[in-house]
C-alpha cells in the first residue's frame, strides 16, 4: 500500500461525465446523418466531415496557442457543435463557407466567452445565422433530395424547402390550397421520411424523432423544453390556421417542416444555454415556440427556429434568476398535530 489519499466527501461518483453526454448526443444524431447521406449523397458526408474537423481544429488552435491553457477537444463538445452546424446548412454549400462558420461558432460564440459552459448563445446557431446573413445565396440554395441508387425525381438540381414554398406562395398572393397542390410540394409523408428540400439535418422527422427517443432514454434531455416548444408552436399555429386556413400553414405541417424538430430536440435542449429549473425550461419552450411561428408568418425569413432559440438564449440568465426550485421547508407549517395523526 502506498500513501493514503484524502479528500472531502462524497468519495464516490456516479460516473456520468461530459464526454458520455456528448457521445450520447452524437449517437442520437446518427439516424439524421444516415438519412442526409441517403438523400443528398456524398456531399453530406463532405459537409459534416469538414464542419467537425474545422471545429475541432479551431478549438485546438485557440486553446493551445491563443489561450495557452489546457486543451479539451476530447470532451466532445466541439464534435457536437460541428455536426449541428453541418445539420443547419444545405449539403451543396462550398467547403470554405463551412470552415468560416466553424470559426465563428467555436472562435466567437464559444471561446471568447470562456469555452465550454460559459457561452450564453448556442454556438452552432450563431454560426448558422452568421452564414445566413453573410452568404444568403449559398445558404438558401437547396439541393433536391435524390435517394441513393435511384433515378432523380426531377431534372432540376436545386429547389425550395417546404416553408420556402409557403412563404413565396403567400407573398405572391396564392392560397394555401394552391401552394400545397403544387407538384413540387413535398407533402406529409415526404416531410416525415425526409424527401424534402432543406438543410442537411432537418429534413427527416422520423430520423430526428428516433434520435430524440434515444436522448430521452439516456436521460440526456427532459420533456420540459420539447413539450413546451412543440406544444406552443402547435397551438399558436393551430389558432392562426383556424382563423384563416388559406394564409396560415396548418399546425401538423408546421411541426414537420423546416428546422422545428431539429431545433426542438437538439438545440433548444442544449444545457449550457437554456434555463436550469423545470418551470424556467417550460417558459423557454413557450417563448421559443411562439417566436418561431411569429417569425415564420410575419418575419422576412421563411424559417424562424434559429432566431427564436437565440432570442430565448438571451433571456436565459433572467429566467434563471426568476425561477428557483421549490425549497425544502419553504412553506411554513400549519399544525404539528395533523402531521403525526397520519401514522
Amino acid at each position, binding site marked *: 500500500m502506498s500513501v493514503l489519499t484524502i479528500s472531502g466527501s*462524497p*468519495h464516490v461518483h456516479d460516473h456520468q461525465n461530459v464526454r458520455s453526454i456528448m457521445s450520447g448526443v452524437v449517437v442520437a444524431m446518427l439516424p439524421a446523418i444516415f438519412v442526409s447521406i441517403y438523400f443528398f449523397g456524398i456531399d453530406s458526408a463532405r459537409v459534416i466531415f469538414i464542419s467537425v474537423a474545422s471545429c475541432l481544429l479551431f478549438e485546438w488552435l485557440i486553446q493551445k496557442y491563443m489561450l495557452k491553457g489546457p486543451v479539451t477537444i476530447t470532451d466532445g463538445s466541439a464534435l457536437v457543435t460541428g455536426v449541428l452546424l453541418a445539420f443547419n446548412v444545405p449539403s451543396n454549400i462550398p467547403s470554405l463557407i463551412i470552415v468560416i462558420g466553424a470559426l465563428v461558432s467555436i472562435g466567437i460564440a464559444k471561446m471568447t466567452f470562456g469555452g465550454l459552459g460559459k457561452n450564453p448563445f448556442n454556438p452552432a446557431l450563431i454560426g448558422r445565422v452568421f452564414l445566413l446573413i453573410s452568404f444568403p445565396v449559398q445558404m438558401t440554395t437547396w439541393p433536391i433530395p435524390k435517394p441513393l441508387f435511384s433515378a432523380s425525381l426531377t431534372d432540376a438540381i436545386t429547389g425550395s424547402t417546404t416553408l420556402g414554398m409557403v412563404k413565396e406562395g403567400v407573398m405572391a398572393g396564392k392560397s394555401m390550397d394552391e401552394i400545397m397542390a403544387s407538384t413540387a410540394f413535398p407533402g406529409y409523408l415526404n416531410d416525415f421520411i425526409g424527401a424534402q428540400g432543406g438543410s442537411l439535418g432537418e429534413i427527416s422527422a422520423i430520423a430526428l424523432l428516433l434520435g430524440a427517443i434515444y436522448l430521452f432514454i439516456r436521460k440526456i434531455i427532459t420533456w420540459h423544453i420539447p413539450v413546451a416548444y412543440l406544444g406552443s408552436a402547435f397551438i399558436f399555429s393551430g389558432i392562426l390556421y383556424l382563423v384563416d386556413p388559406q394564409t396560415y400553414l396548418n399546425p401538423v405541417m408546421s411541426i414537420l417542416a423546416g428546422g422545428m424538430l431539429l431545433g426542438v430536440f437538439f438545440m433548444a435542449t442544449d444545457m449550457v444555454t437554456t434555463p436550469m429549473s423545470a418551470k424556467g425550461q417550460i417558459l423557454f419552450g413557450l417563448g421559443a415556440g411562439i417566436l418561431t411561428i411569429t417569425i415564420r408568418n410575419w418575419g422576412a425569413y421563411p424559417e424562424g427556429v434559429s432566431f427564436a432559440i437565440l432570442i430565448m438564449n438571451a433571456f436565459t440568465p433572467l429566467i434563471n434568476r426568476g425561477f428557483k426550485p*421549490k425549497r425544502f421547508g419553504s412553506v411554513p407549517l400549519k399544525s404539528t398535530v395533523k402531521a403525526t395523526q397520519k401514522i
Partner: protein
Amino acid sequence: MKTFKIGGVHPEEHKLTANKPITQIPLPAQVSIPLSQSLGAPSKLIVEKGAQVKTGQLIAQGESFISANVHSSVSGKIVRIEEVTDASGYRKPAVIIEVEGDEWEESIDRSPNVVTEIALTKDEIIARIKSHGVVGLGGATFPTHVKLMVPPDKKAELLIINGVECEPYLTADHRVMLEKGEEVVTGVRILMKALGVDKAAIGIENNKPDAIAHLQKLSANYPGISVVPLKMKYPQGGEKQLIKAVTGKEVPSGKLPADTGCVVNNIGTALAVYEAVQKNKPLIDRVVTVTGESLTNPSNFMVRIGTSVDYLINQAGGLPTDTGKVISGGPMMGKALTTIDSPVVKGTSGILLMSEKKSRRVVVQNCIRCARCISVCPMGLQPVFLAQYSEHQMFEEAEKANIMDCMECGSCQFTCPAGRPLLDYVRLGKNTVGTIIRNRVKK
C-alpha cells in the same frame, strides 16, 4: 411506498456484510479514548495518568449544556494522556489505556436476558441517558439527553426511529435490528416514555425486508409502534427527509424537527438507551461495519470505543495492498482518515477500505449548466450557485440563497458530470457564513 419528494440519488448498494452476524473480537492491547466524541464542548478529564480504571467507569465529564460523559471501554491502566489523530485529521486529546483483563463496574448488569419492563420514570430515564454518555449513533453524535428535553414551547407528538441506513456499504444498523430486535423495541418504548409520546414509527428502507418483517413481528404487541417501509433512495436517512417521508410534513427552514412534533433517533441509539436504562451499561461499545471489496473478511464487529482502526482491519483479514483510502463512515458522507492509527469513537458506524483506483476523483471540468445538481438536491437548493458564491467569496449572496439549509449529503457532487467539487465549496461557504452569523448574534 413512502419517500421524500425532492431530489435524491441512487448510489450502488455494496451491502457486502448484510448477512454477516455481529462478531465479538478479542480485546486489543490498548485503546485511545478521545475526550471529544459528541457535538458540543469536549468533556473534562476526571482521572489521572497512572490510574487503574474498570470497564464502564466514568473518565470524563460533560460540562456544558451540549456535551456528553465519556466512559472507559476497557479495564486497565491509564498509561498516557496525549493527543491522537482522529477523523478530523488533527490531533485531539485522548486517554490511552493499556488493557488488563476485562473487569467491569459492579453496577452494570451483564446478564444476557432482555429486560422488557421499564421501571424508571421519565425524568430518571433522561438522567440515566445523560450520566451514561449516550449520544446519537447515526453519526452526528448529538447528546441524546439534550434531544429528549424538548423545549417548552414545542410539543413532541411522534418518535421516529431511523433504521434507514441509506449509506452504501454500511450494515451495522441492519444487523442490530435483526439480532437485537427485542432490545431495540424496548429502547424505543423507553424513548417514548422519556418523551411522553404514545406513537413511534420505525423507518426502514425496503432493501432490508428481513429487518422490516422482524421488527413488525416484535412490535406487534405494542400498538403505538409501527414499522414504516421506505423506498430506497439516498439520503432517506437524513432527519428531515425521514420526517417528510413518514409524516408528509417538511421541517421549515431554520427550524428543528421538534417544530413538526417529531423527535428522530437512530436504531443504534435506541439500543444504547436500552443498555443504559435496563442494564445500567454506559455507552462503551458499538457495532462497526468493516468493509471493502478487497478485504478478505468484511464483517460487522462489536467494537469497544477507542479500538484502533488498524486493529479492526487486521481482524477483517489485514490491510489489502491496493488500499488507497480508508473512510470512517459511508462513502457519501464519511471522512477520509489520514492514518489507520485513529481510534473508533461513538460516531464511527463503519470503516470502508477503498482501492487506489476508486480513490482518485474524476477530472474537474467547466460547469456545463446541466442542472443535475439542482434536480438531485434533497433540500431544493441550487448547489451550482452556492459553490460559485463560496468560491468567489460572495458570502452575503450565499446566505441569501439559503446555504445554511444544506445537509452536506453529497448528492450534488456525486452526480455532477463535470466532476466539480461542489460540496467542498459549499462546506467552505457554510463554515464562513456560520461564523458570520454567530458574530452577528454576539453583537
